[in-house]
Structures are given as structure tokens and as C-alpha cells.
């Protein structure tokens, strides 16, 4: 990879991470409670533990937070078949 292209890749990664950090702080404090009700009574240790993942997956979490979506339901062949036949 040329130095110029490597520079662009690193800059893009840095920008993505910086936005992720800015997003993750309010997310682990408040947003996570709305996304997953189980998180409401959860410890600060848990909020610290999910911080790196919130930085990495901020576009997905932001979309869910804004749209008010909660955790997706479990899906597999049996669960899908049970939904279809009942």
C-alpha cells in the first residue's frame, strides 16, 4: 500500500473511532437503557465493559437508538417454523 493511501486509511479509521468515542459516552450512560431494558439496573462495570464495542458498532447502535428499536428476536429454523405454523 502506498504511503498516501495508508494515510487516508488511517485518517478514516481515526475519524470513525473519534465519532465512536463521542457517541459511546452518552450511549453507555443513557442510550443502552432504551435499547435493552435489562441494562437499566446494570452496573457501571458493565457500562465500561461495553464501551469498546459501542465505539466499534456506533452506526448500528445510533440507528437503533434513534428509531427506538429494541434487541432483535432470536431466529433459527425451529423458531421460524414455530412462527409460521402457529
Amino acid at each position: 500500500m502506498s504511503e498516501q493511501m495508508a494515510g487516508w486509511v488511517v485518517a478514516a479509521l481515526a475519524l470513525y473511532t473519534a465519532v465512536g468515542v463521542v457517541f459511546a459516552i452518552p450511549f453507555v450512560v443513557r442510550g443502552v437503557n432504551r435499547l435493552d431494558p435489562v441494562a437499566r439496573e446494570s452496573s457501571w462495570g458493565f457500562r465500561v465493559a461495553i464501551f469498546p464495542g459501542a465505539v466499534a458498532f456506533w452506526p448500528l447502535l445510533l440507528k437503533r437508538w434513534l428509531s427506538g428499536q429494541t434487541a432483535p428476536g432470536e431466529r433459527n429454523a425451529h423458531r421460524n417454523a414455530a412462527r409460521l405454523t402457529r
Partner: protein
Amino acid sequence: MSLNYQAVLWNRQKKIYDGLIVLGVVLYLGMFVGVGSLVRPQTTIETLLIRGFGTLALALLHVILSIGPLCRLDRRFLPLLYNRRHLGVTMFLCGLFHGVFAIVQFHALGNVNPLVSVLSSNTDLSSLSAFPFQPLGLAALGILFLMAATSHDFWLANLGAPIWKSLHMLVYVAYGLLVLHVVLGVLQAETNSVLTLILAVGFVWIVSLHLLAGFGEIAGDRELTAAGSDRFIRACAVDEIREKRARIVCLAGERVAIFRYDGKVSAVSNVCQHQNGPLGEGKIVDGCITCPWHGYQYAPESGASPPPFTEKVPTFNVRVKAGEVWIDPHPNPPGTRTEPAPIEGDASNG
């Protein structure tokens, strides 16, 4: 199982497991640096630490990749599976220390951004000795970061088990990248063939173990089919199921666990709601099906976790006729109570 999230749900086993991990890491690094400085006194402590953390991360990755197939082949390895994610996070941290120390030592002393230097220092794809092996390690570290960052159960619930599992299956991509990182990196400068031999043995071990476990799984994954006009399908003989254990069959596109207990038979989907663990490889403890991976529990009649827990798996209607178990191939919605089929002539029945 928990009603809210904690950073870690500590218990005695986890503390022992983690204590052994920390002890192992400290002992390995101490021995690597100690022996290394005696054998090669010209090598700096920084280089020894870079190599120590790198080899430890790779060794831990081999252990981690071995645990799954070993558990399939022999249930005595299951305790290793219980807290495997802590081993994974430890492996990532070792890889991170290796990467950070290497970047500081080899890429941070010039005018170029160290990460830009990692990505652009070697550019000759046609040369083995000058191949850009550093980006391979960086890519593997990125995958290991995503896995470590999403190792908490919160991510399993919020990404969904299929996506979470797919993400964590990228560990095999990371392993491939790391093998190439070592082969095209340190082994190009190494004159001692012992390292090459160790890496080759490790690779053959991992591939063989997975093939062996995989062939065993394929044999049990033949989908059952109806023998006649009856909606129910013959699954197995009652005698094939040990008390408080299950027989696993494949039905409706997934595995079904048929449990025998207290003179009765019940069937549930084999897929635990937590990490998709194999319920049929567990046993009935205190009246509940108990997942062998992390101890999640379900009532065999309803597939529902005991209150106040809320996990549920689909159930199946079953019959026992003339010593044989017959099963309705249409799953009931998760948590639906079904009548257990009594086993004729079983002394513990009724």
C-alpha cells in the same frame, strides 16, 4: 443467568479459571524473557517482550481453537469451555501488547505516522522476505478486538445469536492471517527451524481436530423423515436415551434434544437461547435441562427457564409407543408447555 447485566458474573469456578490464566501468562512471560536473555544475551528486553507476547497470543489462540472440537470429542473438556471468553480477551490483550510494542520499536521513530508506516513499509507482494506481513497482523488484531469488545452477553442479545456467532467465527480468518503474519514475518529471518516446526504442528493439530469433530457431527445430522401417513416421525428407541440425558436427532432443519427423565420423555429444540449451546449434550439437573456450556436452564415440558428468568426454546410434541419415541416435526412456539410422554413399564413413571 441474570436479571441484569454485570461486567462479570463472578463465581468460584470463574475466579479459579481466571487465576490460572493470569498465573500461566506471568509464568510464560517470565520464563520466555528469563531463558531468552540467558540464551541470547544480545537481545533487548523490548524484543523479548514483543516475541513473548506474540508467541503467547498465538499459543493461546491454538488452545482456544482446540477447546470447541475437544469438547465435541470428549465431554471431560467442557470445563475449559465454560469461561473461554476470558481466555479470548486475554489472548487479544497479549496480541495488543505485542502489536503496540512492535509498532513503538519498529515504526515510531521516524517522521511518518506509526500506523501509516505499518501499512506502507513493505510493499513487495512478490517477495517472501519483503512481503507486507505487518498489515496481516494488524488485520488479525482488528478481528480479535471486535471479538473481545463483543464478548459480553449484552452483545449476544443485541446483535442476535446468528450475527454474534458469525462475527466470532471470524477467529478462523484471524488465525489464518496470524499464521501468514508469522510465516512471512519472523520465520523469514529465523535460521532455527524449531519455530517453523512448532507452527506447522499447531496448524496440522487445529485442522485435524476440526475435521475429526466435524465428521462426527455430520453423521448425527441426517434429517429424520416420515415413515407413513402419521404426522409423527419415529426418532429413536427409548432405551437409546440414558436417564436425565438426551438423544439428539435432526428435524425441521435443526437439532432436537429428546430427554428421558422420571419415566417420561420430552423434546425441545437443541439450541440454547444463550450462545446457541447444545442443550442435548447437557443433562437434567434439579428438574431442568441444563446447558453444558454455561448452565442456562429450561423446564423439559415447556422449554422455559424457571422464573424469574425469561429464556425460552421451542418444544415438540412426543409420544412413546412400544418402546419407541415418536415426535411431531412441527415445533411449538418457544416456551409452549407440552405433555411429556410416559414410558410404559418404567418403574420411575408416575
